[in-house]
Each structure stands twice: as structure tokens, then as C-alpha cells.
């Protein structure tokens, strides 16, 4: 019973999506099931998180096939933290979808696919097998293709073509990398690979494999110069979909980067340099991109790219302090980015536009709501004591320690440029006098909809803002969590020992 504990979050999502399919056209049932199921899922994930936190890394060997041969699921602290964050973001987006997605989309299976996406994410976090990771990635991207095209508007389809092509290409590069890795070592288990890759004599081939992994995951996590699909597609689907994409989809790429480069390809100076350079350029180009955009959702898209840079830089420095900063930033970023895209949906619902030129006067019309939105926006900038501030301390400390002053400069520059972007957004959307926005016909404006649905729009934003506030004010706890994860990641013998067992005591 307890042995399979870490699989329960995974199975619950699968159960939910299958259950939802039985209510194909009954959208009110679907809304209810999805929200209730997500609440149960959050409780379950919190329980499993607590269990792993107290008892250390848990593993399950699928079908009792022993570790290097069968597929294993490994719940170390990093994986289980991300599972918990997935269910937090999943709950918020589920409530927001129930309010904001139009019935026509819901009738074509929005909710089942949404839960399949979450299933894929949780699977990707938990698996300890590199080919299994590929399969979970495919589940994620197939679900995301359906979500991005559902509705079939012109912009959506155009965005989907770009999104599809680049993600498919990334998967193929990832598959190629797995093939070469298997050819080199004859193993697919990540813990087993760690030892075998280190023993391979042909270092050039190992390096090439590592670069293939880097490109594959780099496309998925939208780092420089592989990010152009992201701003071309993330603003096209409904904002609830963008919220889950922006919050979790790019982060699963970052997770894979962290996992592969902390476990399999370690002690590789060449790669750390590449990661640093990529991170710096990502910080720079994402920030500058956000500066020139006029659509609120495109600004947020570029900010996703910009802030991926922090995590990549942290990974590139690869000291315990830097990894702690990366993990803290990951935790902060998932909550905030999900929230921001939901906010862009709320703004659209109120005003009927997302163009910064036309928007304005939000503060005088909805002062309380504006103050609520203030929290995630300025968490993003990292004004102390809000959540974006703390990981930057670790990252900056680490860049002093490792003497990489370029990354120091990039981190400070990106923080500054985020501030400028958010200040501009605040001035344009909240303070400026509103411009002329053409009236939309057949559109439920926020002031016309009923009170319970209005509350449904605001509740997820309040929920995630509270989580953000907790990350900011309870930074000590999060710092403790990320230090523990960093400790586990920088010393990969713990992970290997958990999966393969200790060779001395095994006899």
C-alpha cells in the first residue's frame, strides 16, 4: 500500500481523465469533477511530499523488474516538489478553465486532455528511466498540441504549426541522443547511466551526446537561440491553456536539463561553459524582447524566456549555492508565470483586448483587483520580500564564488529590465487613460457575468498569489527545501544509491 505511494498522484490524474471522458458532453459535470479531482490531487501530492520529505527518496520498480533492467520511478525531493507544484498550478488552472473556457471548447474534451497533460508532467518528473522520460515528454506534447489547437481559430492554427514543428524536432533530437547514449552504454536507467557514462573512453562522443540532449531540452525549455516558437504560439490559445503552458511546460524542459546534467553528464567543464553562455544570452534576449512588445501576453511570453535564463545560468555554475538558487527560482517561477497568464485572461475578459496601447484605467475601475495583481507582478521583479528576490541572492552569491562576472552582470541586467518591463506594463494597463477598444459582440464581459462566475475568475489568482506570498515571506522554508534538493543534486551518489542499492550492503 505505502510502497506504491509515489505512483498515486500519477494514477489519480489518469483516473480523472478517463472519468472525464464518460461525461463528454456534460460540461457542468466535467467542471465539477475536474475541480474536485484537482483538490483531492493537491491533498494527495502534499501528503506524498510530506512522506518523501520525512523518509527520503522513494523508488518503485515497475513490475518488480530490478533497477538497471526495468523501469523505475524515483521520487527524490526535486521530483516530488515539482509534483506538488504541478498540482498547485493544476488546481488553479482547473478552476480558471471552468470559468473562462467557452462551452464549445469544453464539449470537445478540454478537461480530459488537460488532465492527460498533467499526467504527462507528473510522469516526467517521477521517472528514473531516460527512454520513459521520452515517452512522458511525448504524452505532454501530444496533449499540448490538442490544447493549443482546440477551437481552431486562425491564429491558433498558425501558432500550432510552429509549436508542433519545433517540439517534434526537439523530440527527435532527444530520441537521437537516447539512441547514441544506448549505443555507448547499453543502459537506459539514469542512475546506471551515471556510472557507465563516466567510464566511457570516447569522451568526444559523450560530449556530442550531451550537446544533443542540450539542444533537445533547450528547444523545449526555450533557451537562446531556440526560443522563437514560444512567443509565436503561447499567446494564441485561451489564457487558461497559456497559463499551464507558461507555468509548467517550459519548466519540464528545465527539469530535464537539471536532471540530465546533474546526474548523467557531470564534471564536464565544456558543457558548463556552454550552459553559462546560453543562460546569459537567454537572460539578455528575453528581456530585450519583452521590452519592445505591446501585447500583454507576448510580454509575458518573453519574460518566460528571460527567466529561464536564471535557471540555466544557475545550472551552468553548478555549485551547491547556485543549484539552490535555480531550484528556488523554479519553484517561484511556476507559481508566478501560471498566475500571470491567468491575469492576462482576466484583463482580456474585463476589457476585451490585450493590447497595451488600448488598455488603461484598470486601477481606477478595479482598485482591489489591481492590488491583487500587484503581488505576482512585483514578485516577478523580485522586490523584497516578495518571492523573486530570494533566489537571486543565491545566484549572485554563486556567481561571485565562481568568479563568473558575466553571469553576475546578466542576472542584474535581467532583473533591471524586468523591472522596466513591469513598470511600463503597470503604467500602460493600470494608470494610463484607457484608449478606444472596439466593442466585441457575443462576448461575456466581466461586468455582465454573474457573481459566482466572477468569483471563479478571481479565486485561482488569489490562490496562486497567496502561494507566491508564502514563497516570499516563508523564504526560509523554501530555502531549506531548495538547499536539500541542491545537496542531493550536487552529490549524485545518493540518487544512484537509492535506485541501484548500495553495492557493499547488497551482498
Amino acid at each position, binding site marked *: 500500500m505505502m510502497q506504491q505511494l509515489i505512483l498515486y498522484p500519477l494514477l489519480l490524474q489518469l483516473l480523472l481523465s478517463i472519468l472525464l471522458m464518460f461525461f463528454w458532453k456534460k460540461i457542468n459535470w466535467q467542471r465539477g469533477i475536474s475541480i474536485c479531482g484537482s483538490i483531492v490531487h493537491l491533498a494527495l501530492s502534499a501528503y506524498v511530499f510530506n512522506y518523501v520529505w520525512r523518509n527520503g527518496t522513494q523508488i518503485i520498480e515497475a513490475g518488480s523488474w530490478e533497477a538497471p533492467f526495468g523501469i523505475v520511478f524515483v521520487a527524490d525531493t526535486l521530483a516530488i516538489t515539482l509534483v506538488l507544484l504541478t498540482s498547485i498550478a493544476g488546481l488553479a488552472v482547473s478552476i480558471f478553465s471552468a470559468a473562462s473556457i467557452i462551452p464549445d471548447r469544453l464539449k470537445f474534451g478540454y478537461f480530459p486532455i488537460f488532465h492527460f497533460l498533467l499526467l504527462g508532467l507528473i510522469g516526467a518528473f517521477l521517472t528514473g528511466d531516460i527512454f520513459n522520460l521520452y515517452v512522458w515528454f511525448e504524452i505532454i506534447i501530444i496533449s499540448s498540441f490538442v490544447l493549443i489547437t482546440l477551437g481552431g481559430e486562425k491564429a491558433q492554427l498558425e501558432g500550432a504549426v510552429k509549436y508542433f514543428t519545433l517540439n517534434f524536432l526537439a523530440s527527435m533530437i532527444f530520441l537521437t541522443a537516447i*539512441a547514441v547514449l544506448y549505443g555507448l552504454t547499453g543502459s537506459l536507467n539514469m542512475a546506471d547511466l551515471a556510472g557507465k557514462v563516466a567510464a566511457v573512453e570516447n569522451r568526444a562522443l559523450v560530449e556530442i551526446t550531451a550537446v544533443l540532449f542540450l539542444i533537445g531540452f533547450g528547444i523545449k525549455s526555450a533557451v537562446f537561440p531556440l526560443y522563437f516558437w514560444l512567443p509565436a504560439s503561447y499567446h494564441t490559445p485561451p489564457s487558461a491553456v497559456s497559463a499551464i503552458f507558461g507555468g509548467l511546460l517550459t519548466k519540464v524542459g528545465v527539469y530535464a536539463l537539471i536532471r540530465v546534467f546533474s546526474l548523467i553528464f557531470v564534471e564536464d567543464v565544456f558543457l558548463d561553459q556552454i550552459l553559462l553562455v546560453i543562460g546569459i544570452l537567454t537572460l539578455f534576449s528575453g528581456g530585450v524582447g519583452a521590452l519592445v512588445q505591446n501585447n500583454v501576453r507576448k510580454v509575458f511570453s518573453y519574460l518566460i524566456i528571460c527567466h529561464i535564463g536564471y535557471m540555466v545560468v544557475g545550472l551552468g555554475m553548478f555549485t551547491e549555492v547556485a543549484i539552490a538558487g535555480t531550484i528556488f527560482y523554479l519553484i517561484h517561477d511556476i507559481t508566478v508565470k501560471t498566475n500571470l497568464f491567468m491575469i492576462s485572461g482576466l484583463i482580456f475578459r474585463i476589457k476585451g483586448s490585450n493590447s497595451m496601447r488600448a488598455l488603461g484605467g484598470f486601477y481606477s475601475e478595479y482598485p482591489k483587483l489591481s492590488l491583487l495583481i500587484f503581488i505576482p507582478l512585483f514578485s516577478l521583479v523580485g522586490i523584497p520580500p516578495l518571492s523573486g528576490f530570494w533566489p537571486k541572492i543565491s545566484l549572485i552569491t554563486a556567481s561571485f564564488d565562481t568568479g563568473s562576472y558575466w553571469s553576475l552582470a546578466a542576472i542584474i541586467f535581467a532583473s533591471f529590465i524586468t523591472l522596466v518591463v513591469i513598470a511600463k506594463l503597470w503604467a500602460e494597463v493600470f494608470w494610463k487613460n484607457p484608449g478606444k477598444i472596439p466593442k466585441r459582440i457575443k462576448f461575456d464581459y466581466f461586468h455582465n457575468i454573474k457573481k459566482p462566475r466572477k468569483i471563479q475568475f478571481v479565486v485561482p489568482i488569489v490562490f496562486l498569489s497567496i502561494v507566491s506570498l508564502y514563497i516570499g515571506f516563508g523564504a526560509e522554508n523554501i530555502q531549506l527545501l531548495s538547499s536539500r534538493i541542491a545537496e542531493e543534486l550536487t552529490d549524485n551518489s545518493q540518487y544512484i544509491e537509492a535506485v541501484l542499492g548500495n553495492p557493499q550492503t547488497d551482498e
Partner: protein
Amino acid sequence: MEILFAIIIGVLYAAGIYMILRRSLVKLIIGIILLGNGANLLIFLLGRISEGAPPIIPEDSKMFLEAYADPVPQALILTAIVISFGLQSFAIILVKRAHKVVKTDDLDEMNATDEDS
């Protein structure tokens, strides 16, 4: 045999990438298919090709006595084929819909989402 495979895989990858880089949507799909097949063959090749050596332990012994064909790559390829088949059929439908709605099959004209709005 390995050399031949290596050349075929190289050609498949090169042709796939070339086709993806073209402007036509149909060529995009062809490129995706070629690339997928190239990747599958690569797994097959890197699992080492061996002839007439099934991975079956003889009755009178407890372990493999000589080199045997690795069954894992075939399982991997089977999975990868199914996945890429699903993705390719999705791509065909997507391209058909996109062509119908946007009324062009030229990728250079599909730039509405990149424009300022």
C-alpha cells in the same frame, strides 16, 4: 552492413532536415516522417546488428554463452514508431486545417502571430 545503415540514416536525417526547412507545409510533413524514420533506424543500428543470435538461453545453461541480439532497441523502436505515427497523423490533420483556415501553404505567409498587435 553497418556502413550501409550509417549512410542511409545520414541521408534520412539530412533529407528530413532539408524538407523541414522548405517553405511548403506538405514538405514539412514529409520532413517529419523522414526524420522519425531516421531516428528509429539509428536506435536499431546502435543496438548492434547481429545475425542469427536470438536472445534465448539454451536449456542446459543458466546464462548466455555467446553474443546475442539485444531485444531492448526493438522495444524502443516499437514505442517510438507508434508515437511518431500518432504525431504524424496529427500533423497531417493540423496542416490540412491550417491550409483551409489560413488559405496558404507557404510558411512565410503564416506570420500573423509574430506581428505586433
